[in-house]
């Protein structure tokens, strides 16, 4: 290193790669003197489908558009671009999908960046070995892990810290495409690599993880600038249109976090209990007092399963007889569909599941509304779950006439409810779920990570 650490400037262009980028913000950040660009590209929030299928949540065209701007800035300013949790889930397929978009842009634009790929997807056998060695630790509310649960996973990823990014930077990478990574880690990585103190680096990473969301722009589509000093960090929007205030910045620790005070990360805990937030200008906040508390190195593992399948049907109901007695209608319908499913398939009730959601009445809550509640209309969604798609589909088709025509009470004239689509039954695919909530102990931050360098 060229001398004692003074400060480092990082531009976080957006909350998630592909949500849309403002070209004037990129120019503003480069003019400000950004030394690196870092963004995450995913999250578990939208469910397990993206890990299970290895697909992006954001559209390829949108991701390509954002990457085209960022890669142009990378070429122009000669600063590294770090991307964490590629294509929503950070599995190997997600990393490769992002790699292919980047290679396509490089080819089209004539760029020759040095690209590092960081893979953190895990074989089931690796996790089973860790389990046998007693190196898997439960996180509440889940209990002990067993081999069958590991076997049920379609893909498993381990959450990386900043160290793999350091290895890629050491190797001279211009662009780093990371698999599943802690959001703050991908942002803090460059600062830590430059010798910035751990507490402020991790805290700045956390504040900037959703891009400009912690500023008055209040959206992850906007960018944010962080400058980490020896004793704290400054944060400001990547646009003169917005502001950052001590409340907006300190309030971000509340967002999507179980605890607002302590954040467990690979290799330690960020403690912000004693932080102070001071307004430097009306758009810049200085944060001091962030503490990094080193712990034995662990990586959180995430695994997605999809062993059950669903078929859905939707009808709209305005029939006043149904609207007058939604509960009676619901219970009667569930009974009739269950009986029909049993007779059509010969299966026991325990081998399939039918759920009816009455949107407009209690579709979201699922609980009985206060007495006298009368819906204007009901959107009735039937969700049939079974162990194969063919079986779920068979049950839906067998139930179709009842779902379509069943009156509130037997003996009433036959109604016909309003289908919005044809065909009426929709094979929705597997029920993807995260089934792991555990951390594994590792001897080295690279133990479960593979790095590959490629030239565009």
């Amino acid at each position: 290193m060229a001398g004692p650490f003074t400060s480092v400037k990082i531009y976080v262009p957006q909350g998630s790669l592909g949500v849309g980028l403002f070209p004037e913000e990129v120019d503003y950040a480069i003019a400000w003197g950004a030394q690196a660009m870092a963004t995450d590209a995913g999250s578990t929030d939208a469910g397990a489908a993206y890990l299970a299928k290895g697909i992006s949540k954001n559209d390829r065209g949108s991701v390509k558009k954002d990457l085209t701007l960022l890669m142009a800035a990378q070429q122009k300013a000669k600063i590294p671009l770090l991307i964490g949790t590629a294509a929503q889930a950070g599995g190997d397929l997600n990393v490769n999908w992002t790699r292919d978009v980047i290679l396509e842009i490089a080819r089209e634009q004539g760029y020759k960046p040095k690209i590092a790929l960081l893979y953190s997807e895990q074989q089931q056998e690796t996790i089973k070995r860790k389990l046998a060695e007693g190196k898997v630790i439960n996180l509440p509310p889940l209990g002990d892990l067993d081999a069958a649960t590991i076997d049920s996973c379609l893909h498993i990823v381990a959450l990386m810290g900043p160290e793999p990014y350091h290895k890629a930077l050491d190797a001279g990478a211009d662009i780093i495409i990371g698999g599943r990574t802690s959001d703050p880690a991908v942002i803090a990585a460059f600062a830590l690599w430059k010798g910035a103190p751990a507490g402020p680096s991790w805290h700045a990473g956390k504040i900037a993880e959703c891009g400009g969301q912690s500023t008055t722009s209040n959206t992850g589509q906007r960018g944010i600038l962080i400058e980490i000093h020896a004793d704290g960090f400054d944060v400001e929007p990547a646009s003169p249109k917005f502001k950052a205030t001590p409340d907006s910045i300190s309030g971000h620790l509340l967002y999507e976090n179980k605890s607002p005070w302590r954040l467990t990360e690979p290799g330690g805990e960020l403690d912000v209990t004693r932080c102070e937030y001071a307004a430097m200008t009306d758009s810049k906040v200085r944060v001091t007092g962030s503490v990094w508390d080193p712990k034995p190195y662990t990586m959180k593992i995430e695994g997605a399963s999809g062993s059950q399948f669903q078929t859905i049907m939707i009808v709209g109901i305005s029939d006043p007889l149904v609207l007058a007695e939604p509960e009676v209608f619901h219970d009667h319908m569930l009974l009739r569909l269950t009986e029909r499913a049993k007779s059509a398939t010969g299966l026991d009730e325990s081998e399939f599941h039918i759920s009816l959601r009455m949107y407009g009445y209690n579709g979201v809550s699922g609980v009985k509304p206060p007495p006298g509640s009368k819906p204007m209309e009901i959107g009735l969604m039937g969700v049939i779950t079974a162990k194969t798609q063919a079986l779920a589909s068979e049950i839906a088709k067998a139930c179709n006439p009842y779902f379509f025509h069943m009156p509130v009470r037997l003996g009433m004239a036959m109604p016909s409810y309003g289908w919005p689509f044809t065909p009426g039954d929709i094979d929705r695919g597997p029920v993807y779920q995260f089934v792991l909530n555990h951390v594994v102990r590792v001897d080295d931050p690279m133990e479960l990570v593979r790095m590959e360098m490629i030239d565009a």
Partner: protein
Amino acid sequence: MPKLKDVCRHIRSKVAGPFWVTIDLMFDSQENFDRYSQSPALSAEAIAKVYGIDPKGVVHYPVPSLKVLKISYPRKTPQGSIEERDLHSGQQYVYILDIELG
């Protein structure tokens, strides 16, 4: 006796990972934060009853500097399970808006 929604400027809920929900109660004044954030009507037992969960899992985090009470609890069913109705848990705050504060 005010309801929770009468003493907060904003109330929100969201998943905190696939197995937890977190609710932020942003009180509208220091006075209301001091007066109501420790109300028995917001106790672990009271919250657990609303969401049909074990009170032992409910955790309270008061943040006086922001006049916020954060309450986190384990999801009754994991995110995306077969009876999912609110994948991001973004609607869960609604069921506590009318809690009457003692």
